[in-house]
């Protein structure tokens, strides 16, 4: 029995379709992240799961039970909001126990539950304060406390870290991950930040314009993106996407970028054979283009060394990002800070050919 099952959910606002047939299933204890640019429908989907909005068609099951038409309070869920949504006129303790109050849980039980949760989140000292007297990070913990105390089947997070500064965000990310590992809760987490998605999720659902582009674990989404959109959306700096032509050669199928002497040839998997003679898009991440001494793998043919002209250098301290000319296009590489390439000069670079992805230039779908 899956913890959450979304079957063919559509959502229409008048003539605009915000969700176009969403199908997702997640098991108990999974941390699912819905990620995508603004307007992709992820918040609408979360609201539908919570019962705050009704879907136009399709059904939602929580814990094996169909919840369509059931109000949020009866769905056994808890939600943490971007703006924390703490009741400003109530103390932290009252904020956390408000749900139990509404369900007429006896006072002793309420207080015991608050104590338990407060200890877990280390907010015991704050219980008698009001939200206005707390810092951003403290407020977020109280919001999580309110969710935890419900002991729900499903936790829903709606961009909870967007209001925090970068450092606090990194800290809270860690805390959320730790909580998940400790409690084994089932979580659906919405964010537009792909780093949060990568670090927190057991599986990522990348969404765009109401459609799930790919639903897989982070490693797959990152290294074998389902289409060009996912490839470009995940990872910063984004994946290089270059136009290439597939040819047959003595070494097997190659993708050719550029013409004549300046042409570079990249070995590609045999699965792409049917595309020989056609134009494709070659995708390779910047970290797969490095200094020639970089170790990628011992497997034969997995490393290609090429010469390319350096057009721009951006040293970041930990590494140097170089902009290279490949054929008629530019590609980003991430090289060791010791390399110190010269602007305008041609230098040699190692390329990890195992991580090459090919895409159909028309549909954007992955070929190999």
């Amino acid at each position, binding site marked *: 029995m899956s913890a959450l099952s979304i079957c063919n959910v559509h959502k229409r606002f008048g003539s605009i379709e915000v969700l176009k047939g969403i199908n997702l299933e997640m098991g108990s204890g999974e941390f699912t992240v819905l990620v995508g640019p603004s307007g992709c429908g992820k918040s609408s989907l979360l*609201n539908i799961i*919570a019962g*705050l909005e009704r879907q136009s068609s399709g059904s939602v099951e929580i814990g094996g039970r169909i919840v369509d038409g059931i*109000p*949020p*309070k*009866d769905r056994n*869920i*808890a*939600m943490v*909001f*971007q*703006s*924390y*949504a*703490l*009741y*400003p*006129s*109530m103390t932290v303790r009252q904020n956390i126990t*408000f*749900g139990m109050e*509404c*369900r007429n849980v006896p006072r002793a039980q309420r207080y015991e539950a608050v104590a338990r949760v407060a200890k877990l989140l280390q907010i015991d000292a704050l219980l008698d304060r009001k939200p*206005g*007297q707390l810092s951003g990070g403290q407020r977020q913990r109280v919001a999580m406390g*309110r969710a935890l105390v419900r002991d729900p089947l499903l936790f829903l997070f709606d961009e909870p870290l967007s209001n925090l500064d970068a450092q606090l965000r990194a800290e809270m990310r860690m805390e959320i991950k730790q909580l998940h590992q400790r409690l084994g809760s089932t979580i659906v987490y919405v964010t537009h930040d792909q780093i949060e998605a990568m670090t927190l999720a057991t599986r990522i659902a990348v969404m765009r314009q109401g459609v799930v582009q790919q639903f897989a674990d982070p490693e797959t989404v990152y290294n074998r993106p389902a289409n060009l959109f996912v490839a470009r959306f995940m990872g910063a700096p984004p994946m290089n996407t270059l136009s290439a032509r597939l040819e047959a050669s003595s070494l097997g199928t190659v993708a050719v970028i550029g013409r004549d002497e300046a042409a570079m040839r990249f070995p590609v998997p045999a699965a792409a054979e049917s595309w020989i003679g056609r134009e494709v898009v070659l995708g390779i991440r910047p970290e797969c283009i490095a200094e020639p001494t970089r170790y990628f793998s011992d497997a034969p043919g997995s490393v290609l060394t090429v010469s390319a002209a350096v057009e721009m250098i951006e040293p970041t301290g930990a590494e140097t990002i170089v902009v290279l000319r490949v054929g008629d296009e530019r590609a980003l590489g991430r090289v060791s800070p010791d390399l110190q390439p010269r602007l305008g000069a041609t230098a040699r670079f190692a390329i990890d050919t195992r991580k090459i992805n090919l895409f159909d230039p028309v549909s954007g779908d992955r070929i190999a």
Partner: protein
Amino acid sequence: MSEAVPAAARGSPPAALDLLRRLPEFLTIWVPLLLSAGHLVSFALWTIWVSFTPSTLVPVSGWTGMRNYTAVMATRNWQIAFDNLLVFGCGFVLLSLLTGLLLAILLDQRIRGENVLRSIFLYPMAVSFVVTGTVWSWLLNPGIGIQKLVNGLGWTSFRFDWLIDRDMAIWTVVIAAVWQSSGFAMALFLAGLRSVDADLIKAAQIDGAGPIRMYRRVILPTLWPITVTVVVIQLQFAITTFDLVRALTGGGPGIATQLPALVVYDFMFQRGLLARGAAAAVLMLLILLAVLLPYAAWRYVQHRQAAHA
């Protein structure tokens, strides 16, 4: 503070010439502001001074100590006016608060025709108190108003003659004032209701709050600052009411609906006792300060608290 470019960089012209060049600007800024501030301060001080003189038909100098104040407070006129002010103040503020809140909550329910309804509840504020008072004096007049209508319809024992009833007349002023000013309270409360964080409502829905609990525990508590503002403004209006009473009852029947503002006018322009009138005006000011000063203190404390958080 007003020098963006230092004088040295401009090749400093002599200070006097510069002052002359900036004279028009100086005058434009200061003349209206000084006229306004000046007249406020000097008028207030002068009136206070007159209240301590023996002036009758014209202002004269002299010191009479507190005599004018005690004399005013000893008159029946003033005592009735003060009692009326308490009744009117509390009744009016309470009722217009409740009505305004009720209307705001009703309008907040996303009903159709909300804009039309808002216009209906607010239009009395666009109309003079004189008009309101006159119209309501007709409606509440037992001889030609509601009582006569109901009597004419068959219910001959119906009575609604508060307007000429000494004990109830002040309540007619309350009715007319609530009718006129509830829209104001409604407008402010509606703005407050609308500005409640949407996520807060969602969180409460997930927590399982029904509509009554939602309003009582989540939404209405955020309206507290607005409520205080409305109360203060309505109290200020109540204390200085003149137009409405004059038009509605003229202070009557007899002196049953006297209010401080009418007493002031009575002393100053009908009896020619300027000093007594001034004393009555100062008493009015003191009553007003009794409301405004705590409010200002409360706001100050709030500011300090917010700065600490």
